[in-house]
């Protein structure tokens, strides 16, 4: 092959992740992010998300103007993200629970600065060092704030490897549309599992620096300021009102969920992320036996599908929440159903243990037979 032919055949977009690939979730999220215009990543190693930082350490070097840097800590990494976001990049970081705790300072600032960025939390079992097994114990931290102050994160809960890539794109789109940080809340099941991903289905975004960003070429404009401090309470109150208004509009516009066989259901299951996969399989199986059971899978954990859940709960005899935690999302289920009380059941897994089919099915059969099944009945206490 002559040199010219080789040149002619050279693919200018060789760096772009494409095609149908068998991938780990931690890789898929990065591939999706790069297609979505992400050109910068800052992070720090922590299990079980090391595949993400490793993928980016190579892939971003081939992306035009790509930046990869392994920060000295999670604290430094999130602040590097802050800088790159302020300079107008689509930038992401990823970590796991203890590391996400360290990033909370920066996330709080980024929320108040109204900077878009994407952070992935591949949740492991805590508190403390805990272990590296899958868990959902960071739900409150993700959807109720996490860092100091009154703010919300757009929180996405993918349930498949393909959805990891999709949610990287969706996360950036929502973060940039609303100028708010977005989080992908997942766990080691989705992060480590390999599944087919259709990367060509993920939109390619050619991201341009927005007007509000800081940077060179500012001739003829006033200085851009990125800050989170309003010393005068009157000014701060005004800023709060603006952000609250944004959150309310965001809540009205961006709720996403999946309903599975809910139409005539007598028992409604609620589960997100990897847990929803186990529940969906059981619902399918029990439907074949004629049992009227459905599943609501929240895709956005914030904003949460309260309205949908409220309407669905009106038609069922009981609602059962599956979570790998002591009970966090179930408080949002209780909030959603507070006006038309229906028996709420809670089926947890602890310590990093995942749901086997029997862990889903056995309590579900008992609840189906008796909506007041005392073994699983849950009340606010």
């Amino acid at each position: 092959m002559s040199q010219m032919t080789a040149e002619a055949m050279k693919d200018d977009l060789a760096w772009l992740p494409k095609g149908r690939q068998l991938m780990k979730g931690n890789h898929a999220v990065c591939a999706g992010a790069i297609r979505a215009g992400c050109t910068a990543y800052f992070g720090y190693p922590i299990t079980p998300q090391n595949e993400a930082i490793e993928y980016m350490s190579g892939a971003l070097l081939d992306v035009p103007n790509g930046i990869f840097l392994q920060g000295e800590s999670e604290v430094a990494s999130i602040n590097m993200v802050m800088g790159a976001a302020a300079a107008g990049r689509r930038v992401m970081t990823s970590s796991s629970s203890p590391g996400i705790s360290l990033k909370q300072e920066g996330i709080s600032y980024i929320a108040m600065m109204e900077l878009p960025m994407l952070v992935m939390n591949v949740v492991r079992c805590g508190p403390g060092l805990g272990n590296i097994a899958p868990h959902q114990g960071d739900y409150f931290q993700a959807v109720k704030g996490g860092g100091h102050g009154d703010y919300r994160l757009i929180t996405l809960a993918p349930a498949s490897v393909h959805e990891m890539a999709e949610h990287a794109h969706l996360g950036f789109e929502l973060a940039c549309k609303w100028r708010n940080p977005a989080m992908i809340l997942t766990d080691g099941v989705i992060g480590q599992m390999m599944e087919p991903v259709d990367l060509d289905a993920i939109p390619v975004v050619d991201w341009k620096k927005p007007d509000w960003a800081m940077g060179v070429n500012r001739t003829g404009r006033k200085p851009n300021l990125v800050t989170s401090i309003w010393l005068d309470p009157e000014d701060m109150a005004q800023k709060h009102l603006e952000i609250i208004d944004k959150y309310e509009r965001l809540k009205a516009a961006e709720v996403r969920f999946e309903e599975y066989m809910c139409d005539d259901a007598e028992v409604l299951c609620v589960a997100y992320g990897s847990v929803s996969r186990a529940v969906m399989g059981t619902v399918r199986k029990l439907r074949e036996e004629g049992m009227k059971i459905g599943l609501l899978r929240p895709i956005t954990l914030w904003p949460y599908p309260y309205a949908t859940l409220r309407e669905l709960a009106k038609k069922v005899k009981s609602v059962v929440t599956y979570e790998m935690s002591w009970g966090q999302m179930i408080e949002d289920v209780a909030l959603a159903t507070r006006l038309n009380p229906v028996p709420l059941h809670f089926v947890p897994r602890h310590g990093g243990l995942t749901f086997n089919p029997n862990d889903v099915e056995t309590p579900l059969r008992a609840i189906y037979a008796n909506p007041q099944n005392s073994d699983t009945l849950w009340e606010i206490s």
Partner: protein
Amino acid sequence: MSDAINELRAEVPLPQEGFEVVYQRPHSLNDTQFTYCPGCQHGQVHLCIAEAIDELEIKDRMIGMAPVGCSVFAYWFFDFDFISCPHGRAPAVATGIKRADPEAIVLSYQGDGDLASIGAAEIVHAANRGEQITVVFINNAIYGMTGGQMAPTSLEGMVTSTSPRGRDVSIAGKPIHVVEMLSTLSGVAYAERTTAHDPKGLIKTKKAIKKAFEYQMEGLGFTIVEVLCGCAINTRRTPKDSAAWVGEEMNKVFQVGVFKDIKEEG
């Protein structure tokens, strides 16, 4: 505040014919009056920075990091893009900005609590990576904004609100010498300590800051200028005595001079 000054200016028109402007406020500062306390040198150091930027004609490339501390509102005074950083994290934020926008000239303006205490990891690693940024490090040996607590740079025996019997080195260790420490790192292109307590020191400070920016423009590596300043209010001194204390006591502990110059080393 800015409007008030403009009104005053409008009332007192500058003479036109036969006059030329030989000294004026640097373009890199806006019209806002400094809000710093009497006896504080933040304002003078801001002026040094602004004059250096004007002389190098890099105002339109500047991005500043405001720290947490008395200079948290540094962006009130400078006329270029700024970001207000979490406490101590300015070198990490600066890293993200400079890498995202390599044409920018990045200034990280930090105090001693911000840089040498809570932000010690960020400054060391930014320096070690040779980030193409310029750090102006204000060392006044005390926490100013929070009301005079002991800083990592407080002198031995120095009375502060959290060392009421004087800094006891058996409890708190000795004052940390930042530019000496950072000058051992290969990523550092320029490290100098100057003092802002007198005109001679301010002339050297401006020269050092200008040199640091020039090194950044040439892409030589990380640059830092540590400036010894006084905090008259929190050290309970008059502005005059505070300046004298910097010149005498602080200078004994923190030697001024160039600790690293990559060009001098060849």
